[in-house]
Each structure stands twice: as structure tokens, then as C-alpha cells.
């Protein structure tokens, strides 16, 4: 995959799914990334898996990301792999924290089942159409989504000589 190939993929997606489906493309450090609109993620991936002339049949990873100062904050990355052409492409979408809803791709790639649950657990992105949208790693009654950047780190203050005066009553 090179920058030209990425543009060709983007154009085919625009033709196959809709003019507004692709937001932007970037080719950075030999990684091709196709940013798509959140509502059309499933359609884009379906197009790239089934109808594109260069099909991407394998979802090697699905993960979330929080770009805190930037808006919209949350990103969901789909890393596609073609075993035949030994090629990879990233499909990425950005949603805000106010309404983080993205269509599920579980019916296209069954591996997305647990990975979407993990993204929901850690970032609070709700995948619409997922059959079992609940936490996977944290306890069911856990509050908040711990991988968001504005989530407190947690843990306990560790006592060192530089902060022992700031932690009152540590001695008893």
C-alpha cells in the first residue's frame, strides 16, 4: 500500500458507500489510514470486505483511543489485513464523548465481539447492534471508563521523603 493506492481505495469507498463516508486519508510512516464518518463505519468495512476489488478479509485489531485535547475525543481504529496481498490498512473513526455510538461490525468480523466489548469497557463507546454490549475486563458494577484520559489514575499515594509532609497522619 502506498499513498496513491490509499487514494484509490478511498475513491472506491466513496463510489461504493457514499460521498460523505470518507472524511480524510493519511499516509504516515508507511501506514495508510482511512478516516471515515462514524455512522458509515459498518458500510465501509462491508464494502472493503465483500465488494472492493482488493478485498480486506481479516480484521487484525480493533481498538479505541482517547485524543483528549482534540475534538471529537474518542477514536476507534480498525486494522485490516489482507493475507493474499500481505498488506495492511487502518480504518479510523472519531466520535465525541457526548454521544459515542458506532455501528457494530461483529456480523462482518466475529473477532470484533470481544474487542468491541473491551473498547466499550475502557472508553465507553457503545457499539450499536452488538448482541452482548457489557463490560469484559472490569467488574460489572465498575463506574466510569478507566482508559479515558480524564479518568483519575487511581491507586494510593506512595510515601517518599519528598511528599511525607504533604500526606498527613501517615505515621498513625
Amino acid at each position: 500500500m502506498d499513498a496513491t493506492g490509499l487514494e484509490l481505495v478511498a475513491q472506491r469507498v466513496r463510489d461504493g458507500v457514499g460521498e460523505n463516508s470518507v472524511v480524510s486519508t493519511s499516509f504516515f510512516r508507511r501506514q495508510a489510514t482511512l478516516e471515515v464518518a462514524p455512522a458509515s463505519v459498518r458500510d465501509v468495512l462491508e464494502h472493503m470486505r465483500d465488494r472492493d476489488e482488493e478485498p480486506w478479509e481479516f480484521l487484525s485489531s480493533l481498538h479505541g483511543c482517547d485524543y483528549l485535547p482534540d475534538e471529537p475525543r474518542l477514536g476507534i481504529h480498525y486494522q485490516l489485513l489482507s493475507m493474499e496481498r500481505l498488506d495492511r490498512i487502518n480504518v479510523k473513526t472519531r466520535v465525541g464523548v457526548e454521544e459515542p455510538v458506532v455501528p457494530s461490525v461483529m456480523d462482518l468480523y466475529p473477532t470484533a465481539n470481544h474487542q468491541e466489548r473491551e473498547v466499550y469497557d475502557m472508553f465507553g463507546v457503545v457499539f450499536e447492534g452488538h448482541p452482548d454490549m457489557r463490560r469484559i475486563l472490569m467488574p460489572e458494577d465498575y463506574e466510569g471508563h478507566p482508559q479515558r484520559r480524564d479518568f483519575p489514575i487511581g491507586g494510593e499515594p506512595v510515601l517518599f521523603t519528598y511528599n511525607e509532609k504533604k500526606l498527613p497522619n501517615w505515621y498513625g
Partner: protein
Amino acid sequence: MEVKRQKLDSMKVRGARAQQMLRGDLEGEDLEAYVEERVLLTKFHDAQNWARKNAMWPLGFGLACCAIEMITVIGSPRNDLSRFGAEVIRFTPRQADMLIISGRVSVKMAPVIRRLYDQMLEPKWVISMGACASSAGMFNNYALVAGCDKFLPVDVYVPGCPPRPEALMYGIIKLQEKVSGDESLGWRERYQAEGTEEVA
């Protein structure tokens, strides 16, 4: 050869004496001598604790990398924990006496461990193995419980990341001393600091 023969003879004599005693043939001074020679007197609780400390069966239960080290201690002939009577791993909490918390305790795992502990029958003991189990170690984040003593009572803490097998065995020996009632004072002994214990 001569020594062996003598030993055999004395065993024969002892066997014959035991037979006589069981038949009720021994009387008077002979019986006194027999009792002095054969019977050990102790308190019931001492005998009970002696039996308990020499058959502490750990629960087959591991959490993280410390568990690998724990398996080396419990399961391997190199370290041979059967010297201290703690090598029989029980895979049900109903039959186990000792819970070794071996590794970091996540927020999700803590209730499970507490339930295992509750299912164990009294008397039961807990060893917190390694830095993570005792204080969350190098982690300080949302996912871990900082110290397993927050949700169950711990008898012995073994430091290390992970502890050496000798360290865990030392911890088990310390626990045995605790069970048999002649607990050593640890560092207090060295610094003559008896009487400074915080918890009686």
C-alpha cells in the same frame, strides 16, 4: 555387623516387652519403666498444633508471575516442600488449610479470592506472597487492590518480586512457628524491641 546384631536383639526385646504389656503381664516396676520409656506426655493443644503445622495443605491457586515461583516451591523436588508437610496441593478450598496469594490482586479478582477464603474451613491461614499481593507493588492504578489485607486477614507477608523459593519457604516456616505458638519476634529480636508490637 556386630552393632546391627545388637540393635536387632534390642528391638526383639522391646517387641517382647510391648507384647507383655498388651497382655497385661507387666506389673510394678517393670510397668513403670515401660511407661517412662515409651510414653511422651504433652498438652492436647500442643499435639493438635503440632499436627496442624506439619500438614498445612495449600490451595491450588495462583494469580500472576508469583504463582510460577510458588509452583516451583510447592511442586518441585528441588525445593521439596514436603519436608515441611505443605506439599499436598488441594484444588478445593474445602480441603485446603493455607491460601497463598501469589500475585497482583485485581479489583475483579478480589471478591473471588474472598469467596475462596470464606469457603475454606477453620483453621485457615493466608500468606501474602510478593510485593504486589502485599501492597500492589510497582502498580498504582485503577485496576488493582493495593494489598490483599484489605479484604482478608493475612498471617505472613513475604516480600520480593517475586520472592526467592527460600523466602517463601521461610515464610511457611514462620507460619508454622506461628501455628505452634512459639512465634519468633522477627526483627524485634535482633533490636531487642520486645513489647513494641502494635497489635497484641
